[in-house]
C-alpha cells in the first residue's frame, strides 16, 4: 500500500461519489457542481499520471469554461426545478442497468485477462550520427548494410541524428563518388575503405566518429545522452580524442584568473578514447587540452545551450602544404549538439508534438472551434420577424383590376409598409 495508491483510492472514491450524486440530485445546479468536483478529481488523476499540462487544461477549460457555460444555461432556462413526471419508457431504466452491468463485467474480465501491467511499451529505436574527422582524407559515403546513412561526408561534416532500426549491421565506408549520377558502390563493385560490424541497440543514441589516418582508420563511438534533463540550465559534454599519433591528453577546465583552480574534467585520454559524460552548468568556459604539460589547444569562451549534449573532438585539421612541415595541425571539431528530449508529459513535449506531428489536427480543431462559435451564435440569436416579400411579377389582369377599382383589391399581394428596399415589379 503505497502512498500513491492510498491517494488514488481516496480520490477515486470522491470521484465516484460525486458522479453518483450528480446523477441523483434533482437540482440541476447541484448536479453541475458535483460534476465540477468530479472534474477536479480527474485533473488530480492527470497529475498523478504525469500529465501536468493536461491537468491544468482540464481545470481551466473543462471545469472553468464548460461548466460555467452549463451553469449559465441552467440559470437561463430556469431548469433547476425541472424533473419528475411520468415516462413512457420505464423499461429503459431496467434495460440500461442490465446492459451496463454486462458492460462492467466484460470490462473487469477483460482487464483481468489482459494483464495490462505486463505490457511494456516498445523501446525507442536507436539513433546515430556520423562524423568525419580524418584530415586530408577524401569525402566518404557510409553504408549500413545497403542503406546509405551518410552521403558525401567530407572532413568536418557531421550528419544529423538519424533514427535507425535496432540490429546488427555491417558498416561500409566507401570513397564518395564525385559524380552525382554515380551508381551505388555495390553496383560499381567498389571495395570499401573500411568494413566493420556494428550493432545498434534500442534506446541508445550514438555519435560515430571516423577517425585516424587513411591507413589506420578507426570508428569511435561516443554515446549521447538525450534523456530529459532534470536541471534546466545544464548541458552535457563528451570529449573525444581523435588525434592520431598523439599521446594522452588531459581535458582541463581553465580558470584564467587562477591557474590553480583548473579542473581536470577528463584525464589521460588516449587516441581513441571517449571521455565519460560531463554535466556542466550553462556558462562560459575556457577549456584546454594538454599533453604532458604542453598546451595542445585551448578553447576560449566556450558556451553551449542548455539541455544539449555537446561533443568535442580533438583532431587534426589540414594546413596549407609547406615543404618540410607537417600537413596537419591539432584542432578540434565541435558538431552541432542535439537537444535532449523533454520530460514526459511536460508542456514542452506537448507543445513540440502539437506543432510538429499533430499540426494538421491542431489547425483543424481550431477551425472547428471557429465554426462552432459561429454556429452557437446563429442558433441562439433572437428570431427576427421576417418581412413579407412583395410579389415580383404582378399579372396584367390584376393590374387592370387595380387600375379600374380605386381601392387595392388584391390584398394578398399587399406589402407591409417598409421604407426603402421596395422593389418595383419587373414586368409590366
Amino acid at each position, binding site marked *: 500500500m503505497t502512498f500513491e495508491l492510498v491517494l488514488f483510492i481516496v480520490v477515486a472514491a470522491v470521484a465516484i461519489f460525486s458522479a453518483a450524486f450528480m446523477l441523483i440530485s434533482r437540482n440541476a445546479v447541484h448536479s453541475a457542481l458535483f460534476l465540477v468536483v468530479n472534474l477536479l478529481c480527474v485533473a488530480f488523476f492527470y497529475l498523478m499520471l504525469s500529465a501536468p499540462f493536461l491537468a491544468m487544461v482540464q481545470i481551466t477549460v473543462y471545469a472553468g469554461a464548460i461548466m460555467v457555460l452549463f451553469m449559465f444555461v441552467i440559470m437561463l432556462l430556469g431548469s433547476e426545478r425541472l424533473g419528475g413526471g411520468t415516462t413512457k419508457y420505464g423499461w429503459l431504466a431496467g434495460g440500461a442497468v442490465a*446492459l451496463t452491468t454486462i458492460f462492467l463485467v466484460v470490462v473487469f474480465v477483460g482487464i483481468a485477462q489482459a494483464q495490462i501491467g505486463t505490457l511494456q511499451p516498445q523501446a525507442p529505436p536507436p539513433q546515430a550520427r556520423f562524423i568525419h574527422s580524418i584530415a586530408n582524407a577524401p569525402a566518404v559515403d557510409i553504408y549500413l548494410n545497403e542503406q546509405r546513412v551518410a552521403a558525401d561526408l567530407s572532413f568536418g561534416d557531421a550528419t544529423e541524428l538519424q533514427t535507425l532500426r535496432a540490429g546488427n549491421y555491417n558498416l561500409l565506408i566507401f570513397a564518395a563518388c564525385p559524380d552525382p549520377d554515380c551508381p551505388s558502390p555495390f553496383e560499381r563493385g567498389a571495395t570499401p575503405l573500411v568494413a566493420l560490424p556494428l550493432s545498434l541497440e534500442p534506446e541508445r543514441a550514438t555519435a560515430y566518429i571516423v577517425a585516424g589516418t587513411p591507413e589506420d582508420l578507426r570508428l569511435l563511438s561516443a554515446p549521447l545522452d538525450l534523456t530529459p534533463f532534470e536541471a534546466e540550465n545544464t548541458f552535457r559534454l563528451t570529449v573525444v580524442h581523435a588525434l592520431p599519433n598523439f599521446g594522452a591528453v588531459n581535458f582541463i577546465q581553465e580558470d584564467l584568473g587562477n591557474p590553480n583552480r583548473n579542473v581536470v574534467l577528463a584525464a589521460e585520454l588516449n587516441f581513441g578514447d571517449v571521455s565519460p559524460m560531463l554535466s556542466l552548468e550553462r556558462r562560459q568556459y575556457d577549456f584546454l587540452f594538454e599533453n604532458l604539460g604542453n598546451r595542445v589547444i585551448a578553447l576560449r569562451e566556450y558556451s553551449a545551450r542548455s539541455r544539449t549534449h555537446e561533443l568535442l573532438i580533438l583532431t587534426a585539421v589540414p594546413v596549407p602544404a609547406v615543404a618540410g612541415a607537417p600537413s596537419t595541425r591539432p584542432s578540434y571539431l565541435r558538431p552541432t549538439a542535439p537537444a535532449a528530449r523533454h520530460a514526459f508529459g511536460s508542456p514542452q513535449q506537448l507543445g513540440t508534438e502539437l506543432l510538429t506531428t499533430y499540426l494538421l489536427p491542431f489547425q483543424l480543431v481550431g477551425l472547428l472551434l471557429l465554426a462552432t462559435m459561429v454556429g452557437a451564435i446563429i442558433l441562439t440569436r433572437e428570431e427576427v420577424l421576417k418581412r413579407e416579400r412583395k410579389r415580383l411579377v404582378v399579372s396584367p389582369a390584376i393590374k387592370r383590376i387595380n387600375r379600374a377599382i380605386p381601392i387595392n383589391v388584391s390584398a394578398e399581394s399587399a406589402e407591409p409598409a417598409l421604407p426603402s428596399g421596395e422593389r418595383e415589379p419587373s414586368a409590366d
Partner: protein
Amino acid sequence: MEVIASFVPLVVILPFAGALLNLFLGRYLSEKLIGALATTAAALAFAVAAVMTVGITAHGYEAVVVNPPILDSWIYIPSAAIDIPWQMRVDTLSLTMMLVVTGVGTLIHLYAIGYMHGDPRFARFFVYLNLFLGFMLILVTGNNFLMMFVGWEGVGLCSFLLIGFWFDKKHGEGWKNSNAARKAFIVNRVGDFGLLLAIFLIFWTYGTLDYYKPNEVLHIGGEKAAADVLVREGGDGIAHGQKGVFAQTEAWLAEGGHIVSFGVFELPFETVVTLITLFMLIGVTGKSAQIPLFVWLPDAMAGPTPVSALIHAATMVTAGVYLITRNSVLYHAAPLSAALVTVVGAATALMAGFIALGQWDIKKVLAYSTVSQLGFMVAAVGIGGYAAGMFHLITHAFFKALLFLGSGSVIHAMEHGHHHAHAHHESEHGEESHGHADHAHEEAFDPQDMRNMGGLARRMPITFVTYLIGTLALAGIFPLAGFWSKDEILGKAFNAAFIDGKLEGFAMLGLLLAAAGFTAFYMWRQIKLVFLGVPRTEAAAAATESSPSMTIPLLVLAALSIFGGALNIPLGVNSVLVIGVLFITAGFWLLWALPSVRLFFIGRAEPVTSLPSLKPAFRLIALGSAAAFMLSGAAIILVPSLGASYPLETLVLWLEHSVPYTKGLTLNPFLAILALGIGIGGILLAQRVYSPAPLAEGNQDVLEIRPDTRPAFQLANAKLYWDETYGRLIEQPYNRAAAWLAHKLDWEFWHDRFHHTVFRDFYKRAADFIATPVDRGAIDQGFLRIGRAVAQAAARLRTVQTGYVRTYVFTMLFGVVLVMLILLLPLLRQ
C-alpha cells in the same frame, strides 16, 4: 498474231465505253456529239475487227484465245474444280460475226442520229444501242458457253430496253410498246431456258464449258475433223488433260461407247449429245424467231426502226444461227437434232412467208420476212451447210437492214408529211415525238400502214431505189447478193436430198422453194403499195426525202447488197463472168447513185436520172466513173486473164478454219435458174395481181376481194392465229391459275380465313387471356401485395423511430456492448 488478237477486248470495251460516256455525259452533250460518240465507238470496234481480220489472214487463219486484262476467272470454285475464265476467241467465225455486227451497227448508228432527232431521250437510245453492241460482241467473242450466254442474255435485255423505248408514247399508246417489249423478253426467256439446260448438260457431261482449250489446234475441218483436233502438248499447262467441249466430243465419238452418268440413271453419250442439241434448238427458236417462239418478233416492230434494223434483222436474231454454227461438231454428231433443226427452219420460212402476204404494216411485212429468212438460215445450218447459213446471214444482214432503214425513212417521211398536211388544217398540235398519230377528233393516222402510202417513188427517189435494190436482193435476183446466198442454201438442200438421200433435204428443198416464191411476191406487193402508183393520202403526197444521215447508210447498204455476193461465189461458176457483171452493175449503180446524192445535197429531190440538171463538172464525174466501171467489167469478161484469179468460195474457205464440217458447194445451174425463175415469177405475179391499183375499193387488198383467195388472205392477215392460240393455250390458263391463286388461295384462304382465324383470333384470345386473368389478376395482384407488404413492414418498422432520444441512446449502448463483446471475445476466452 497474238499481239493483234490482244486487241479483241477493245472490241467489247469500246461499245461499253461509248455507252457509259453517253450515260453519264449524255445530258451535257448535243445530239450530234452523242451520236458521233456512239457511232465512233462502233466504227472503232469495226476497225479493230478489220485489223484482226487482216492479221488472222496473214497468220494462217489460226485461232487465238485471248484473256482480257484484269478480268480473270468468271466463275472460280476451286473446291469443285470449276474454273470458267473470261476468255475471248479470235477465229474466222467470230471475226465474221464481229465484222457484220460492228459494220452494220455503225451504219445503223449513223442512221439513228437522223432518225431519233428530237427525241427527248436521245442519249439514252444510243446508250442502249452501244450496250447492245457490246453484249452482242461478248456473245460472239466468247470462248466458252458461259460468255456466250452472258451475251445472249445481254442482247435480250437490250432488245427489251429498245423495243419498249417509247413506253411513254402519248395518248395511252405507250403500254403497247412496253407490252411488246415484255413479250419479247418473256418469249426469249423460254428459249433461254432451253439453252441453259443445254449448258448445264454440257457442263455435266464434259466438266468444262470451253469451246476449245487454249492449247488445242483446230485442224482445217471439213469432212475429216474427227481426229484432227489436236492437243498441243506442252505449253502453258492449262487443263492439260482436259479437252474442250468439241475436242472431247470428237474423242468420245471416236472411241465410242462412252456413258454419261446422271447419278440415278445413265445415258449413252450420243443420246446426251442429242439432248444437248435439242435444248439448244429451243434457245435458237427463241432468239432466232423460229417456230414456235417467233411470236415476239413481229410485235418487236413497236420499237424504233433502227432497233428493228439492227437487232431484229441483222444481229441479235442471227445469234441462233451463230450458235448452231459454233456447235457444228455437236450437231454433226446428232443427226436427229440436225434434221429437226432443218424441218423447223424450213417450216418457219414458209409459214412466215405466207403470213407476210397479208400484212398491212410496212414493218410487219419486213418482220415476217426476217422470220422467213431466218428459217432459211436455220434450215441451212441444220442440213450441214454452215458456210451457206453464215453467207446468208451476212447478205441478209445487208439487205434486210437496208429494207428496214428504208422503211424507217418512209415512215419518217410519212409522219412529216402528215404534219405538213395538217399544218394547214390544225395549228394546236405541236408534238414532236415520233409515233404520235392520234388526233382526238380525227381518225388515227398510222404512218406505218401501207394503205396510207403510195407513189413515194417520186417523192423519195433515193429511198425508193435503195429499197428496190433490197427487194431484188431479197428476192434472189442475179447478180445481187441474195441470189448467191439463197442459191447456196437451196443447193445444199438439193445435195442433201438427192445426193445424201436425206428426207429432211426433200422437205427443206420444197418448203424453201415455195418460201422463195412467197418472198418475191410479198416484197413486190410492198413495192407496189408503197412506192409505185399514186399517193393515197395527203401525207404520202407531202412526203419528202430523208436527211443524209439516213440516206447515206441506205446507199452504203445498197452497195453491199449488190456486191455482197462476191463473198462466196460457188465453185463451178465462171467467176470472171460474175465479176464482170458485177462491175457493170456497179457502173449502173454509180450512174444513178451519184447524181441522186448530189441532187439531194443541193436540195432537190428529183426523180431518177435527172442527169441533165446537174452541173457539167458533176455530170462528167458521174458519167466518167460509171463508164469506168462498166468498161472494166466488160474488159474482165472479154479478157479472161484479168478476172481468172478471183477467188471462189472465199467465205467457205475462210470459215473452214474455225467451223468443222464446213464444206463448199458446186453450183447447180438448174437449181439456180429454177430459183431465179421462181423469184422473177413471184415478182411478175405480184405485179400482175396488184395492177392497176394495189388496193381495191374500201382499202382492201386485191386478194381479199377475190373469194377464192380471201380465206387465205384473211388467214395471213390474222398471222395464222398464233398469238390467239398461245393466248388460249398458255396465257388464259396461266391467268386463270394466277387469279385463282391470288384471289382464292392467297386472299380468301390465307388472308381472310387463315390469318383471321389463326393469327388474329388466336392472338386476340391469347392477349385477352394474358391481359385479364394473368396480367390484372396474377401479376397486378402480386405486385399490389408486395407493395402492401412493404407498406405494412414500413409501418411497423417506423415505430423504431420513436423520436425519443433515450431509446436511441439505449440502442447505441446496446450496439456498443455488442461490439465490445465481439472485439474482446478472443481475449475473454483465455
